[in-house]
């Protein structure tokens, strides 16, 4: 899995505005694999993104719409995007504001296929 996964992660980072992509354990918030630019704190991204998804998972489950698949946090100076790729694993991307969310989503789905 490793080499193909890293190639897939690299493809995500080639989308303009993407500052990094990580494969993260949903329960432990730890980095499994990553391709991030200098200055991106991979451990912080992983821990915080996992915590956010965990909290939202309770809201989606109670609302009766199932588990979160794709998440997009849009902020003033950037965005955080996550995609559930396999049981208890997720891909996380940190991006500049105005990034093409559709394209990132597509590349995350492709990268996710390498994890399965």
């Amino acid at each position: 899995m490793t080499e193909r996964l890293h190639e897939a992660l690299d493809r995500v980072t080639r989308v303009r505005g993407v500052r990094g992509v990580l494969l993260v354990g949903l329960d432990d918030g730890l980095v499994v694999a990553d391709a991030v630019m200098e200055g991106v704190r991979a451990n912080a991204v992983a821990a915080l993104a996992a915590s956010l998804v965990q909290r939202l998972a309770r809201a989606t489950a109670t609302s009766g719409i199932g588990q979160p698949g794709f998440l997009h946090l849009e902020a003033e100076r950037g965005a955080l995007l996550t995609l559930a790729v396999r049981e208890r694993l997720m891909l996380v991307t940190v991006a500049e504001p105005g990034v093409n969310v559709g394209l990132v989503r597509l590349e995350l789905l492709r990268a996710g296929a390498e994890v399965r």
Partner: protein
Amino acid sequence: MADDIRSLTANLAHDPDSLAFLQLGEALRSAGRLDAAVRVVQTGLERHRGNADAHDLHARILVDAGNIAAAADAWGRALALAPRHVGALKGLAFLAFQEGDIDTALDRLETALSEDPSDPSVVQALQAVREEGARLEAEIRLRAGADIFAGFEGADHGLLLLNERGLVLGGALRDPADDDVAEEVAGYVAGAAREATRAARLLELGDWRSLVVEAADGHLHVSLPTPDTVLLVKRERAVPPGRVGLLARRAATAARVWVEAQR
């Protein structure tokens, strides 16, 4: 600026039949020399009566001079010559908005946007007018004693306003079995909103604007209409995320009006 005006004046003097008067008129308008700008444009219009850009410029100078009725006529002439002239559409939308005619302003701006989807000033104006429209609607509903989200699509099952501590302020949330899940979900969503704030702060992303979650059977859209309230919109998976975003923006405006009225 003075050099520009001198050079543009020289260009026009060199070729009085050219369209150089448009640039000169614009430069004079920007410099606040409105009388001179009007004279230049009126002279130009004598030679180029069928030029919609000239009428648009004339109208903008008239607006700056405070002559709104004459500006409306000038934009009307521009539109008669070029029915999809973006400048004239924006101008007339602005006048309609000033008069409180939100629908006409929206019509004009939407036509302008369809002509030039990349014009950021049209996009911004459209957003501001929609926001104002939603605010006015919310005020009318509030005066009539209606609920925060009365009249909104899905108000009885998928729109919820809560405070930052997770207590429900208004709206309703039901699961697919039609059970009321508002209070329980409000607690979780308030926690998620706090977590989003912390993540955005620690990852140096600044203030967050929206949190969109696509789940297996639906979407959640979370935003902060005011610093101490959280808005949740829930929709079925079939509803496009863009539409959920539009609805969330309108609902956020209604929520702001409601919160303001409670203070």
